[in-house]
C-alpha cells in the first residue's frame, strides 16, 4: 500500500505512456494494480540464476522493483494465449519423460496395451525388481558411480583450482607453456584418445578399475576447471594475497585460507558441471571398465537393454532410479550450472 502510493506520486505522469505502450503491444489495458504484480516480481528473486548481475547492481533495489512492478512491458502479467502456448509446447516437449516415469510404474502387459495412458494397476514391482536383481546390477553400479563421480569431481576441481592459481600468479616459461597446452585439452574428443588410454591403463595394471577411470576423468576434466578458475581468479584483488604474504603466510597458506574460500561460487559451477557430465558419461566407462568388472549406473542401463529387451518396465524403473541422485544434486546447484556453462563456453 505504502509502495503503491509512492508509485503514484513518482510515476503519475507516465500513465499516458503506459496506455500508449499497451496499444503498441496490441493488448487491452490492464488495471495497474500493484498488488498481484508485486509478489510476482519478488518471486523472481530466489532464483539467482535467472537474476543477472546487472539487475542486482546498485543499492536502488527497491526503486528498481517499483519500476519493474509498474513500468515493465515485457515482464508484465502474461496473456492467456501465451500461457496456453507455453503449456502446450512444454507438454509436447516433455512427453517422452512423462512416458519414462509413467511406464516405470506399469506392468509389461499394460505398457504394450496402453503405452501412453496411466492405468488403474500402477505398480512399484518394476522398482523392486530393479533393486533386487540377483546380480545386484543397480547397487554395484550405484556404488561405482557415486565413487567415481564424487572422487573425480572433487579431485579435478581442487587440482584445477591449484593449477589455475599457479598459472595466474606465476611468471616464467612454465606457466606460459601451460597457457598453451591446457586449453588444447578442451578440444580433444574423448573418443580419439580412448584406445591409447586403454593400452596405457593395461600396462599400469589399471584396466577395468574404478581408480584408472578416475585418473582419466581427473586429467581429462582439468582444462575446463582451469579455464573457469583462471577467469575467476583474475577478479580477486592481488592485494588480498599480498597482505597475507606480508603477514608472513606462505603461498600455500595464502591459497588455502584466502583464495580458496573466495573461489566458492566458481567452484560450485565446476563441481555441478563435472558431476552431471561424469555421472552421465557413457563411452569412457563402457570401454575402460569393460564388461567384466561391474559398471556405472549409466552403462548399466545399456547393459540392461541389450540383455532383456522384453521387460521395458524394469528398464524404465532402473533408469528413473539411476537419474534420481544426479537430479537431486542438480536441484541444489542448478543456478551454478548455467554460470559454469556460460563461463566455460565463453572463453
Amino acid at each position: 500500500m505504502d509502495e503503491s502510493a509512492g508509485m503514484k506520486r513518482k510515476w503519475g505522469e507516465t500513465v499516458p505512456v503506459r496506455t500508449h505502450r499497451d496499444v503498441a503491444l496490441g493488448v487491452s489495458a490492464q488495471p495497474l494494480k500493484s498488488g498481484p504484480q508485486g509478489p510476482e516480481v519478488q518471486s523472481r528473486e530466489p532464483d539467482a540464476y535467472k537474476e543477472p548481475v546487472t539487475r542486482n547492481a546498485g543499492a536502488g533495489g527497491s526503486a528498481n522493483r517499483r519500476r519493474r512492478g509498474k513500468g515493465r512491458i515485457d515482464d508484465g502479467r502474461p496473456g492467456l494465449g501465451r500461457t496456453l502456448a507455453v503449456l502446450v509446447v512444454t507438454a509436447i516437449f516433455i512427453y517422452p519423460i512423462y512416458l519414462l516415469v509413467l511406464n516405470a510404474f506399469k506392468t509389461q502387459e499394460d505398457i504394450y496395451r496402453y503405452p501412453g495412458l496411466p492405468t488403474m494397476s500402477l505398480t512399484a514391482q518394476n522398482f523392486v525388481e530393479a533393486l533386487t536383481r540377483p546380480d545386484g546390477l543397480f547397487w554395484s553400479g550405484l556404488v561405482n558411480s557415486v565413487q567415481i563421480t564424487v572422487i573425480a569431481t572433487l579431485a579435478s576441481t581442487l587440482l584445477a583450482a591449484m593449477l589455475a592459481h599457479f598459472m595466474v600468479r606465476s611468471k616464467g616459461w612454465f606457466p606460459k607453456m601451460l597457457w598453451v597446452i591446457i586449453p588444447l585439452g578442451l578440444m580433444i574428443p574423448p573418443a580419439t584418445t580412448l584406445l591409447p588410454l586403454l593400452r596405457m591403463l593395461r600396462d599400469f595394471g589399471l584396466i577395468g578399475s574404478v581408480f584408472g577411470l578416475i585418473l582419466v576423468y581427473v586429467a581429462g576434466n582439468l582444462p575446463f576447471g582451469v579455464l573457469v578458475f583462471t577467469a575467476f581468479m583474475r577478479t580477486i584483488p592481488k592485494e588480498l594475497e599480498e597482505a597475507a604474504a606480508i603477514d608472513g603466510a606462505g603461498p600455500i597458506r595464502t591459497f588455502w585460507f584466502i583464495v580458496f574460500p573466495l573461489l566458492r561460487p566458481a567452484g560450485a559451477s565446476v563441481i555441478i558441471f563435472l558431476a552431471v557430465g561424469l555421472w552421465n558419461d557413457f563411452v569412457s566407462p563402457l570401454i575402460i571398465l569393460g564388461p567384466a568388472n561391474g559398471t556405472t549406473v549409466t552403462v548399466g542401463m545399456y547393459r540392461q537393454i541389450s540383455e532383456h529387451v522384453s521387460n521395458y518396465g524394469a528398464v524404465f524403473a532402473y533408469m528413473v532410479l539411476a537419474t534420481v541422485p544426479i537430479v537431486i544434486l542438480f536441484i541444489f546447484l542448478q543456478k551454478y550450472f548455467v554460470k559454469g556453462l556460460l563461463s566455460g563456453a565463453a572463453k
Partner: protein
Amino acid sequence: MQTSLMRRLAPRNALYFLLFAVPGTALFAVFVLWPLLVAFASSLTNENFYRVGTSFVWFENYGRLFSDPAFLQTLRNTVILTLIVVIVPNALGLGIAVLLDRVGWVFNAMRAVFFVPVVLSSVVVAVIWQQMLKDDGIINSSLRSLGVTDPPGWLSDPSLALFSVSGIVAWQAVGFCVVLYLAGLQSIPKELLEAASIDGAGPVRRFRGITWPLLAPSVTIMMVLSLINGFKTYDQVKVMTNGGPGVGTTSTLAFDVVHTGIDSGAVGYGAAKAAVMFLIIAGISLVSLRIMRKREVDL
C-alpha cells in the same frame, strides 16, 4: 620498491610449485597429451589386433581414408547430423525462451521442466526414444489408429534412421538452448526495452533492434557448443542403432573411431580416423574462439 616487494612475495617456493603445478600438469601430460601423441603415432602404422607384425606405413592410412566409401559416408552422416543439431535446437530453443521469458508460477514451473533433459544421460534419452520410435512403438501405433496403414520405420528404414537419431540428439539439445537463451534474455536491461517502447517500437522491432543484438553472444556460444557436440555424437548412435540399419547408415565420426579402433581392432586405421576427428574439432574450436574474441572487442 613496489615491484621488488611483489617479486619477493611472488609464490615461488619449491613446495608451492611441487604441490600446485606438478600434480595437475603431470596428470594432464600422462592421461591427455601422451595418448594424443600415441594416437597420432599409431595412425602412421598398419597395426591390427588380429595380425602379428606391425610396420610403419607413413600416411597410407590417411590416403586410404578419403577413398574409403564407408568413411566418406560417416563424414556425410556426421555433417548432416551436426547441421540438424545446430539449427533445430537453436531455432526452437530461442523461440521457446522468448515465449517463456515472463514471470508467474506457470512460467517458472515450465522453465524448470526444460532443465530436465539437460540433466538426463543421453543413454536414458536414447532408450526412451528408441522405445517410442520402434516399429510397433507408441508413435507408430498412434499413427495406425489415425488411419496411416504403413507408418515409417523410424529406426529401421536406412534412409530415415539418421534423421531420427539426429532428431533425438536435437531434442535433448533444445533443453540446453532454452536454459542458456533464457539466461541471456534475462541479462538484457529492461530499461532499454522500455525506452524503445516509449519511442513507439512494437514487439518485433524491439526484438530485432535490442534483444537480438544483445543476445548475439549467447547465440554464438550456443552455436559453437552445438557444433562441437554434434561432431562428438556417440552415445545415441551406439544405443539406438549401433551404426545400422544396414552398414554404417547412422555411423558418426566418434562411433566410427571407436568401432574401427577398438571393436574391430584396426588400431592404425582407427587412429587415423581419430586424428581426422581431432583436427576437425580443434579447427572448429580455434576458428570459433577467434570469432568470439573479435566479437568481444566489437561489443
